[in-house]
């Protein structure tokens, strides 16, 4: 050990035991059942991004109602999917948001449903916004929505930094090839940052936002919401 290291060790202050004990208590109290569930909190993160989509629609002047699979209004018991499912499933009264802009076709924002891609292969879409008439047909006929019926979609990743590997980004590039059409927006959203993922998307000119978490000092949730607002604004201009 060098003299400098010996000096540093001599003057080092041990961590405050009270602080450690309060961290232990707060940590235990912060762990919701959603984090312990098999999805490891991923459903919760999808719900968060879904709520940003809805906030963006409201900011652009939409009226929003929450409805279940039978189109009945929902106001207090909200049910969401914990693993990807079928838009027409009536096993549980899954909630979606009905978004209505003046003089535009109504839309629906869902969480975790299957969508049929260009190749007709079925893909999971974490947060899709679909034309409401198409969604109604899918529920009636028990079929998956087609990617052409999406206005926007977001792929959500709730992982720590190291798990955000380039493999996830490669798989997203494949998904975009399958579901992206003209005038349709696809976003890759993650709670952690990853240099390799960001580099890949920047190179391939994909829409992405990482580090999206409440109270982010760089205001990235607001930036993402602004991107969603732009998608809705363009939709209104095209459709009205």
């Amino acid at each position, binding site marked *: 050990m060098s003299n400098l290291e010996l000096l*540093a*060790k001599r003057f*080092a*202050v*041990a*961590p*405050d035991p009270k*602080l*450690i004990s*309060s*961290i*232990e208590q*707060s*940590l*235990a*109290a*912060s*762990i*919701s*059942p*959603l*984090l*312990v*569930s*098999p*999805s*490891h*909190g991923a459903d*919760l*993160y999808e*719900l*968060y991004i879904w*709520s940003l989509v*809805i906030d963006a629609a409201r900011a652009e002047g939409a009226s929003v109602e*929450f409805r279940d699979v039978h189109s009945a209004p929902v*106001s*207090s*018991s*909200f*049910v*969401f*999917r*914990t*693993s990807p*499912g079928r838009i027409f*499933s009536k*096993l*549980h009264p*899954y909630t979606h948001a009905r978004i209505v802009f003046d003089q535009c076709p109504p839309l629906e924002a869902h969480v975790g449903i299957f969508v049929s891609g260009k190749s007709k292969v079925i893909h999971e879409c974490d947060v899709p916004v679909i034309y409401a008439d198409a969604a109604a047909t899918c529920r009636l006929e028990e079929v998956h929505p087609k990617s052409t019926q999406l206005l926007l979609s977001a792929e959500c990743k*709730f*992982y*720590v*930094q*190291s*798990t955000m590997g380039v493999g996830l980004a490669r798989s997203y590039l494949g998904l975009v090839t399958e579901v992206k059409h003209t005038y349709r927006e696809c976003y890759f959203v993650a*709670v*952690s940052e990853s240099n390799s993922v960001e580099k890949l998307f920047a190179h391939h000119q994909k829409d992405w936002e990482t580090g999206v*978490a*409440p*109270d982010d000092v760089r205001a990235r949730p607001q930036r993402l919401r602004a991107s969603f607002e732009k998608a809705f604004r363009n939709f209104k201009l095209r459709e009205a």
Partner: protein
Amino acid sequence: MTEQDAEDLFNRINTILREHGLTWLAAEIAAEAAEGRASPKMLSVQEGFDPAFLEEMPVRPARRKKTEFTHVRPLTSKEKMDVSIKALRAIVVSSGKILPEILRTLGDPHGGTISLVSETDSPSTVLSENEARQFSSAAIGLNEQLRTLSEEVRRGS
């Protein structure tokens, strides 16, 4: 804080996570800490040659060329603590802070519930508005304590 203090704390936090059912997060933190830190390293290496032209090559000393490699060094215990704090903020603190944001979008339903239910036989999770606010409040407290801890780790560097 010494390196040994940081190492003990890193292990303690991972144990707490495992004790509370977050084995997956403890494993992700440990994996990220084990990855080490990559940095570019310039090395002088002998240039390659095509063995097919070996006989035609004039006899001269092999040329050496500077080439960039990626060097990975293990993290110090304090750096491992940084990884742990960052992960706890990204996952545990964020998950708590997300809840009131969702409730606000849903119109702050008094006495409402959020259920996460699978179409398959996975267990369902139901969270009341009150529980959501309790988790959120604990997460805000945890965030402050992690900020203090982060400063302690940095001060001792």
